[in-house]
């Protein structure tokens, strides 16, 4: 019997993943705390994206396993998994010519079937997702006509319509300007606080990660370098050992979380 950590809906157990002879993750162990925002940071090519994809069953591990509610995620029906866990990949592709409303409603897929393509619950979930992400006025617009920030909100709306209590996001703030990055992270924070969603995101910006994460996972070369609160993980020494970055760490004047200032 595999031991499951209390209050960890999602876990990596001795996870190993290689592409050909290139080992990305080896004997990797991680428990995602329930109802918290976990953020994975680390230098380029440290395996953080691969880790997130493995947690979302998009990559098949070469060793070990990913546990969803204590059971191997690959042995559960993928539709059932989709009712528990949503994933927003790094560069999602939308069907050509789709409108915002249609795109969001496709988040309902795991709750629907060919015979039951629509239900009252679908309507409620979609309405709620659209209101929460403030895209009501975009509903009838073609997705392709939207700006980067709007698109990202629409993707989040689709993930929310899926009504999962776990949401995984791979670099959701890439290509967004700072204002839109904050807007998106505030939205995730709101989802976490209002709906107790467990969120796992890969982010590049250490300072933003420190602001929003309850649990930071600092990775390097496919290993965990440090894990825990921002105060514990964002330190001068860990930044030096992980990113090779000489820096000062001072309290963020707004939130009091650690702020990394490169030398």
């Amino acid at each position, binding site marked *: 019997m595999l031991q499951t950590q209390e209050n960890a809906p999602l876990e990596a157990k001795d996870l190993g993943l290689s592409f050909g002879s290139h080992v990305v993750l080896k004997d990797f162990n991680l428990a995602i705390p329930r109802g918290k925002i976990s953020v994975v940071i680390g230098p380029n090519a440290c395996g953080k994206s691969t880790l997130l994809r493995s947690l*979302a069953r998009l990559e098949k591990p070469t060793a070990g396993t990913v546990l969803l509610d204590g059971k191997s995620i690959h042995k559960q029906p993928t539709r*059932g998994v989709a009712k528990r*866990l949503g994933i927003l990949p790094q560069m*999602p592709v939308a*069907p050509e010519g789709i*409108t915002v409303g249609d795109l969001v409603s496709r988040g309902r*897929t795991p709750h629907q079937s060919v015979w039951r*393509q*629509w239900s009252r619950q679908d309507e409620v979930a979609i309405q709620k997702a659209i209101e929460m992400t403030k895209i009501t006025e975009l509903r009838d617009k073609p997705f392709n006509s939207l700006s980067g920030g709007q698109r990202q909100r629409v993707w989040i709306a689709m993930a929310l319509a899926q009504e999962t209590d776990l949401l995984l996001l791979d670099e959701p703030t890439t290509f967004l300007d700072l204002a839109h990055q904050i807007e998106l992270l505030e939205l995730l924070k709101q989802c976490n606080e209002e709906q107790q969603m467990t969120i796992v995101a890969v982010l590049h910006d250490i300072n933003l990660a420190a602001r929003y994460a309850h649990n930071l996972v600092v990775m390097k070369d496919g290993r965990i370098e440090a894990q825990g609160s921002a105060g514990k993980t964002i330190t001068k020494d860990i930044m030096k050992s992980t990113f090779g970055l000489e820096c000062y760490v001072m309290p963020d004047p707004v939130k009091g979380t650690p702020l990394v200032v490169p030398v």
Partner: protein
Amino acid sequence: MKLLGHHLVVPLPGGALLMRKRSAAVGCVLLAFTLIAMFAAHWLGVYPIAADRILPLMFSGESNVDQLILLDVRMPRILVGVFVGGLMGMSGAIFQALMRNPLASPDVLGFNAGAAFGALLTIFLFGSAAYVFWGAVVGGVMTAVLVVALSWQRGLDLFRLIMVGIGIGFTLLACADFLMSQLDIQRASDMAKWLVGSLGQIQREDIAPVAIAFVVLGSLGIVLQYSLDRLAFDEDLATGLGLKVNSLRLLLVAVAVVMTATAVAVAGPIPFVAFVSGPIARQLSKTPSSALILAAGIGILVTLLSDTAARTLVASFQMPTGVFTALIGAPYLIWLLARQAKRNLI
């Protein structure tokens, strides 16, 4: 039935269907046009039959030349045209949706060439047309398997599939040409339909196989359309939504290959019907869906109109149906290639 934004919700016991209003309207118009085109095709021809006699002739027990021409010559050809056009239209729409590229239709991917080559090979081996149907199905399926196997890389790689498909298609066409060159002139001209596609030699016995394929595969396609439309997201998103991406893709490829192979077995590789139907259907209905029913409708119309033109425009001899579908399809292919090249998509 109720309205919901741009959709109609059609209640079912324990469920509901969701249909775009515009698609439903386009479907009704296409159905009307199809019926008109079928009637016109029965009416038009070198042998004159008065329009007001067509329906009475069909349902009366008369036995005369008019009825013979109508029921034994025109009707089989028209019905087969309808089923073949519908099968090709749906097959093309499935492939284009799967590969998220309008270039990826079975005629472009070489599956039609494979089916035609398979059919020709049976004629060459057995000296008769008895096994043409199975030759085409086996040829089409084997070509698809070969193309998929050669492009498989830890999953179905769509770009490789298109490239490999085009290459294999040309190779098989060359093989078919070689087989034709081994035949004497008289037989070779009988075989021409295996290169261009034609409804010219259709007989009553040809109706049943394509009709059954149309109903069975068409229903299967429509059931699978829900998943197909969600595969239009990238693989990661589709997996995230709970779809079994690889098995669904394989199943859809299988359905679409058998659709096109059945059509080719009877009518030869009529070019561009599969290629133009899906895009026209989607353009008309402005839907992000693969719109299989509408694609079938366009396929039927294109085939019927082309065949009627091929049969009637020149009184002294019949041209292959494929000549006219090519007249419609080739300019569209050129336009599409130019547009995709401009946007750096190919």
